[in-house]
């Protein structure tokens, strides 16, 4: 019995060591980002490197702002990501509602057709979208970045799956009470779907917040740069200022960390709903 207990203790010890090592490996890059963002540029190439955060975040930020208009990039990212998320939520929930709660011709083929496009990588679309945006003169515009993935196949799939759970009797009795069809959607379907909408909006927002390849192609005017584009600009510059880059990076990741820490259940629901098996 004693050897059994010792074995248990060993497993437990090994498990904790494993987890703590992983936590350390995850945290070191983030800690290093914080250190690099807060030490003065002059100490950057010091050897041995500084391991403790400094107090120069604000002056590094000022240097960053003078170098590239990073506040403007944050504004662009917020405008694009928020409008994209709202538009996509409306489109996907409306269409999902129709697919879940109405009968209409070509319903099944249309739905499976959308599902099939889930596997198409975005790289396939970049070149024609670029030509299209050049043709209609939309390069360097918010709309060009917001519209293309607003009709999101994953979004309509999730909405339809979840809206199927709304009981038909609930909709029927609302109809009896004289609700219009549109009221069924925004007074019954939407409110009951809030957790799923929250999870979907996190997926959508994050996808747009970190989108890189497509904006890189469409937005060439530095005034229109989103955060990832501004970061890439800094990295690709003649002289690379790591302190400024780390300030920009910490400003890019901190809002998402806060969302992650405060709304973790929706975050995880979002990750898991993307992995629903058919």
């Amino acid at each position, binding site marked *: 019995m004693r050897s059994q207990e010792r074995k248990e203790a060993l497993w437990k010890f090994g*498990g904790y060591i494993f987890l703590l090592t992983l936590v350390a490996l995850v945290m070191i890059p983030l800690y290093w980002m914080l250190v690099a963002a807060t030490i003065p540029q002059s100490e950057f190439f010091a050897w041995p*490197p500084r391991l403790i955060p400094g107090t120069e975040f604000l002056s590094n930020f000022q240097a960053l702002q003078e170098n590239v208009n990073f506040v403007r990039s944050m504004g662009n990212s917020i405008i694009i990501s928020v409008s994209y998320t709202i538009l996509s939520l409306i489109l996907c929930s409306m269409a999902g509602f129709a697919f879940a709660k109405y009968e209409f011709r070509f319903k099944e083929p249309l739905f499976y057709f959308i599902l099939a496009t889930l596997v198409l990588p975005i790289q396939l679309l970049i070149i024609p979208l670029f030509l299209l945006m050049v043709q209609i003169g939309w390069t360097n515009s918010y709309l060009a970045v917001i519209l293309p993935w607003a009709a999101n196949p994953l979004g309509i799939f999730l909405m339809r799956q979840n809206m199927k759970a709304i009981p038909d009797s609930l909709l029927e009795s609302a109809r009896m009470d004289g609700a219009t*069809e549109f009221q069924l959607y925004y007074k019954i379907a939407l409110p009951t779907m809030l957790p799923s909408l929250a999870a979907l909006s996190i997926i959508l927002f994050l996808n747009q917040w970190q989108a890189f390849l497509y904006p890189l192609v469409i937005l060439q005017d530095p005034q229109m740069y989103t955060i990832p584009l501004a970061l890439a600009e800094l990295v690709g510059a003649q002289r690379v200022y790591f302190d400024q880059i780390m300030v920009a990076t910490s400003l890019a990741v901190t809002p998402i960390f806060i969302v992650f820490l405060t709304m973790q259940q929706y975050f995880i629901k979002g990750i898991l709903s993307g*992995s629903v098996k058919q």
Partner: protein
Amino acid sequence: MPAVRQASDQLRFLRQNLSQRLPNIPGIPYIYISPFFILFGAFLLFPTVYTLYLSFFEYLGVSNDILLSVTMGPIEVAIPQMANLEFVGLSNYERLLFRDSLFHRSLFNTSFIFFIQVPLMVGVGLATALVLDAKFIRAKGLFRTLIALPVATGLVAYSTIFLLLFNDQVGLINYILTQVGVEPVAWLGSAWGARFTLVIAVTWRWLGYNMIILLAGLQTVPQQLYEAAEIDGAGRWQKFRYVTLPQLRPVLLFVVVASTIGTFQLFSEPFVITGGGPSNATITIVQYIYQRAFESFDLGYASAASVILVAIVSVLSIVQIQYGGDE
């Protein structure tokens, strides 16, 4: 004011009367789905077909010519040609598959990352999920949150951190190596160093994502199966081998397929961390497509490369599903 109320009452009455007949009006669902399908058609369907079309042409420049003009009464729809093209048949594909050594190099680099990175990440992800699922571990929520934190970092943002960490001169990694008495490694200055840097970076970013999915999968394994196995005298390893693995199979398959697709689409990381270098040692397929399309404006040729990429990813996914799916 009463007039307004009266009018609105009237409106509501009208609307109510109308709505009672609405469930049978077949138009309603189409009104719901049409905004989605308009954007879907314009920005997803059309570009997909157009890429395929473009892959048989050589791109000569933009064009404002009209490709097709449809007149429907007062409305005239003119579809512009968009590009000045010259038909080249299969020659884009032929060049890519047999003569383009840089494309082959990008295939090799991407495959290398795929073969090292996917097993590494799925393996460590599974181990983490198993430990977090074990009864004897406390503070599971805290561990899960901390390990999953990289999931919340943007692709370019986290790449810049790794660019700094693995910097050959001022990077923390080389500093730690010299402190423990190891020669500093030319992480970004050598081909293999740069490839491994990418593998490490991508694993850091996606480990937590895979761990979350695998953990959720583990939690759906019925407890009775473990109890039954215990009664039969199964040890830890046997329980894992004969209960956990078979039960987890669909989830593992999803994780492997998703990681495969993700690896073959790598772009931000090599773009930021290695720039595809040194001397194209880490250029990925998507990065190559980007260069051909938007640096040399070979749009037809780059489209053909995109089609090949989709074909590779589809074949790999199908093979994995065939091989790993239910017997």
